């Protein structure tokens, strides 16, 4: 007697399964990966009275598979928190939109005020926009207002990303900050993917061009990708950055696994990891 998705082998005789998708799906999941499942032979489904013919067999198979895929899809979406990743992608995209609009606004302003271009050190962001309101035209001022609005949205969203990351990736966030943690997850293609990466891969996440340039031509490998944004990396002396990035990435790899599989903050681990990262930045 064999174990098919449409029959149970208990008792040594044909035990047709009930034709309820919910029960069938549970049975399929039990069989999947169990090693006792057999590749289905549809003729058995007819012999055991599960269905009357091939087309009915395919029909129930379709219903069952659709049901199962729906359940797996929902489970996957819940575990991988795609919302966090979309939020951080949205954030980065708003950033680049703000930059593009600001650049264009500066160009416009320079035409109105030719002496403006001779100013060597321009302020950044909001201050720059305030400066440009003087001696400008209404049309440009209105656009500057819009950019201000967008910048406000941006900082609000950044706070929300951090808050969400602290819930979804508590350990990674504790090490590198919520934004960097969320960006790493986005770059890795999900929290699950991030949790399966070795530290060495996390270290160069976000440095794709430099990495492939290194692989293809043998140029020096990148020391850091996204982890550069962590203050402990970009704040260190140049010759220490590689070491800090490497230590941080190694600890992030562990943190990502705790986050994905356990989902809770581990204060002991965080204390030790932070100490390791700090000491990587010290020394001669």
């Amino acid at each position, binding site marked *: 007697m064999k174990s098919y998705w449409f029959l149970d082998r208990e008792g040594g005789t044909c035990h047709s399964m009930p034709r309820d998708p919910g029960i069938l799906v549970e049975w399929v999941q039990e069989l999947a*990966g169990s090693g006792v499942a057999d590749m*289905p032979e549809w003729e058995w489904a007819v012999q055991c009275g599960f269905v009357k013919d091939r087309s009915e067999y395919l029909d129930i198979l379709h219903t069952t598979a659709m049901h199962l895929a729906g359940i797996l899809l929902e489970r996957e979406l819940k575990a991988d928190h795609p919302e966090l990743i979309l939020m951080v992608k949205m954030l980065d995209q708003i950033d680049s939109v703000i930059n593009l609009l600001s650049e264009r606004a500066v160009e416009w302003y320079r035409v109105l005020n030719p002496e403006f271009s001779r100013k060597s050190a321009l302020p950044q962001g909001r201050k720059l926009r305030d400066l440009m309101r003087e001696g400008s035209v209404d049309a440009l001022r209105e656009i500057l207002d819009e950019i201000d609005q967008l910048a406000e949205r941006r900082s609000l969203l950044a706070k929300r990303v951090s808050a969400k990351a602290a819930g979804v990736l508590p350990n990674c966030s504790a090490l590198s900050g919520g934004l960097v943690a969320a960006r790493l997850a986005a770059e890795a293609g999900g929290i699950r993917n991030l949790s399966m990466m070795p530290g060495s891969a996390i270290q160069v996440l976000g440095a794709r061009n430099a990495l492939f340039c290194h692989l293809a031509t043998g140029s020096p490998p990148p020391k850091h990708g996204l982890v550069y944004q962590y203050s402990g990396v970009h704040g260190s002396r140049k010759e220490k950055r590689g070491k800090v990035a490497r230590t941080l990435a190694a600890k992030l790899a562990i943190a990502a696994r705790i986050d994905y599989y356990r989902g809770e903050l581990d204060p002991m681990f965080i204390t030790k990891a932070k100490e390791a990262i700090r000491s990587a930045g010290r020394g001669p």
Partner: protein
Amino acid sequence: MIWIGGQLVSEGPGGVYGERMIGGYRHWSPKRSKLSALYYLGRGVELEKHHRVLYLGAANGTTVSHVADYVEVVYAVEPAPRPMQDLLVVAQKRRNIIPLMADARTPSQYLPLVEKVDIIYQDVAQPDQVKILLTNAGFLAPDGVMVFMLKPRSVDVTRSPADVAATVEEGLSSGGIHTDGCIWLSPYYPDHAALICTPE
């Protein structure tokens, strides 16, 4: 295969992904589907009404929908959630598509639902493509064929496509699989190849 005025088409309800209709048939563009490109090059495997197909790497269901128009049943394996959402919409309308959300590296996940098939079509663009094909060869009926889409750039970017293809052919033959060599899909897909494989 159905051709109308030199264009490959399939017969079925349209509007799956905004494809053009030609005389009531769905245009199967070689620009949208590597499998279609293979038919345009005259090297595809004839799909028949009674065929059962295992499709690895079903993605959004674009190519799957055309295959389903031709054959009896398509077992469509796709691991990623986002494309699976689209695939489920396609499978809602085409009841001969059996969606399977699983990684083709672990066939035991879908083994309980998949019967012996006449054709295995694989388009996964992964570094371990060859191994994935070998692990799934058990689903093939004795006189079945496998259509294997190779993307050398996904196997190893640092080596030339021809070089990667040679290694892949070796890997297949040492895995007990016979091929008639690479069919390069240019001009439709530069640096992509198809291999028609049969177990030895």
